[in-house]
């Protein structure tokens, strides 16, 4: 596989605030690469530099062999952006939105007409082609944003929290479309706060926190390495910790106290679970480890605002 994006010691500063603090990563052609992190981790700043709308403060960022730069129109032609905020043109209909946008990419009108019809079909919005934007539901608006991002047949598709605020049906439809695009050979770059989304879509992820990359790897491998396979959650007062850890610690590869809950992480939970049953504690949950466990372990459980 070819490397399509390389960042080396990349910085983004807004005045005194350092949003991206010297990160390095590589994205391969045709993979889905995810940036995960809490609010303010620097995900959006990073991808804005990739699609050339925000200048690089320091470091190097190469996209498809070219340096990312605010005036790099060649790169902007190759990327499709699904923004976090709904930036549709509310004065225009769904179809007009796409037609006008295709003009920005110098797509000839005849080609644009065909492509717009195809894309409206792709995102299942044919019936809404002549609707005004404020007559569409949030899910429809998001789908239209996807169609808009695909007008220029981009090789690199950047999706910034593409399913925020959507109901499960709409979310699954968007995931399916994104996977379909990946199958067609596009490189997908995703930011998300939803761990399930990252697990569903991404081949590799980085977990970002306070402008730095904490971990990088395939979601399943990160879970395995950081947490294990299974998690036992015991809702119990903190003064019981010592006794419980003495009894259960030997069966687990790690434990953590957060709020009202004591977590045990383990590779094989059978013996732990047997022991837990013997103790007959109320309020216990035994479940597979998820990316969310990794995320919370790495970025901390306190609120980030």
């Amino acid at each position, binding site marked *: 596989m070819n490397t399509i994006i390389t960042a080396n010691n990349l910085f983004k500063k807004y005045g005194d605030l350092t949003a991206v603090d010297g990160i390095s990563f590589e994205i391969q052609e045709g993979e889905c690469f995810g940036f995960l992190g809490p609010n303010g981790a620097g995900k959006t700043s990073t991808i804005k530099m990739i699609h050339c709308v925000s200048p690089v403060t320091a470091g190097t960022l190469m996209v498809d062999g070219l340096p990312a730069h605010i005036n790099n129109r060649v790169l902007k032609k190759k990327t499709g952006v699904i923004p976090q905020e709904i930036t549709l043109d509310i004065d225009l209909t769904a179809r007009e939105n796409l*037609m006008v946008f295709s003009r*920005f990419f110098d797509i000839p009108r005849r080609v644009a007409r065909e492509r717009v019809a195809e894309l409206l079909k792709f995102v299942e919005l044919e019936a809404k082609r002549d609707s005004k934007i404020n007559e569409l539901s949030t899910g429809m608006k998001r789908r239209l944003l996807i169609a808009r991002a695909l007008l220029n047949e981009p090789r690199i598709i950047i999706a910034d929290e593409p399913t925020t605020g959507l109901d499960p049906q709409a979310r699954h439809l968007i995931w399916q479309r994104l996977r379909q695009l990946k199958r067609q050979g596009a490189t997908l770059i995703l930011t998300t706060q939803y761990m399930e989304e990252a697990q569903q879509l991404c081949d590799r992820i980085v977990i970002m926190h306070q402008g730095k990359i904490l971990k990088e790897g395939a979601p399943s491998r990160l879970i395995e390495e950081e947490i294990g396979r299974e998690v036992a959650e015991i809702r119990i007062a903190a003064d019981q910790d010592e006794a419980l850890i003495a009894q259960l610690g030997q069966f687990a590869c790690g434990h953590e106290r957060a709020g009202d809950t004591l977590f045990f992480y383990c590779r094989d939970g059978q013996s732990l679970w047997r022991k837990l049953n013997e103790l007959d504690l109320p309020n216990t949950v035994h479940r597979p480890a998820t990316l969310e466990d990794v995320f919370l372990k790495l970025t901390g459980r306190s609120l980030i605002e």
Partner: protein
Amino acid sequence: MNLSYRIGHVFYRNLMSYKRFVVPTFIASLIQPLFYLITFGIGMGAYVGKLGGMPYLNFLVPGVLISSVMLSSSFECLYGTFIKMIHEKLYDSLIATPVSAEDAIAGDIGWGTFRGLVSGTLMMAVAMAMGVFPSSVPSLLLSFVLMIFVGVLFGSLAMIVTSFAPNFDFFSYYTELILTPMLFFSGVFFPLDNFPAWMKTFAQFLPLTHAVEISRAVFSGVYKTGLISNFLVILVLEIIAFSIGVRRMTKRLIK
């Protein structure tokens, strides 16, 4: 400055959205100047009688016409642009395409100019209906050229204001404290001749004064050489305002 032919794409976008608002904007851009023409021209004209050897209405038309261009292009680049920038976040998606921030802003100034031209043309039609005509067909064509220059100038000046604006209310400072007073100090409603010397000098610093001078010549057919300097003032101011406006707005859009 990273400008390209894509300015036209931005103009096209505005045109597409405009078709829904044509009627209300036609009405809006006609009402205020018409109001001036009717109240001042006919109402006050009855008392004033003749001014500079012509009926007051004839005195009033050239200034009111060019002021309507000023107001339309200004409002478009104040409120119109602000809505697109802050509320609709249109520029955010624009600059992710090969359209640069500079293209987007210049496209909007071009659009403001077009809106000014539309207002001016409507006023011209109204003036003609009231029996006030430019001195000749070339003069009429010249008035359109003037409208374009005035549109770019005030569109650009408005863009500078927009680049600073934290919210809508901020625009009142500009419209109430600068644009509206300018109407009274630029010789739109009465000649500057009777002003004290310092006020005459002050008026020379107002771009509208120079535009009104040229507009008067369009209707009177009396072209003095001084008009060249009026034109040069507009041109120079326009170049400065345009480059500052585009730069400042680009800075606001790209972070």
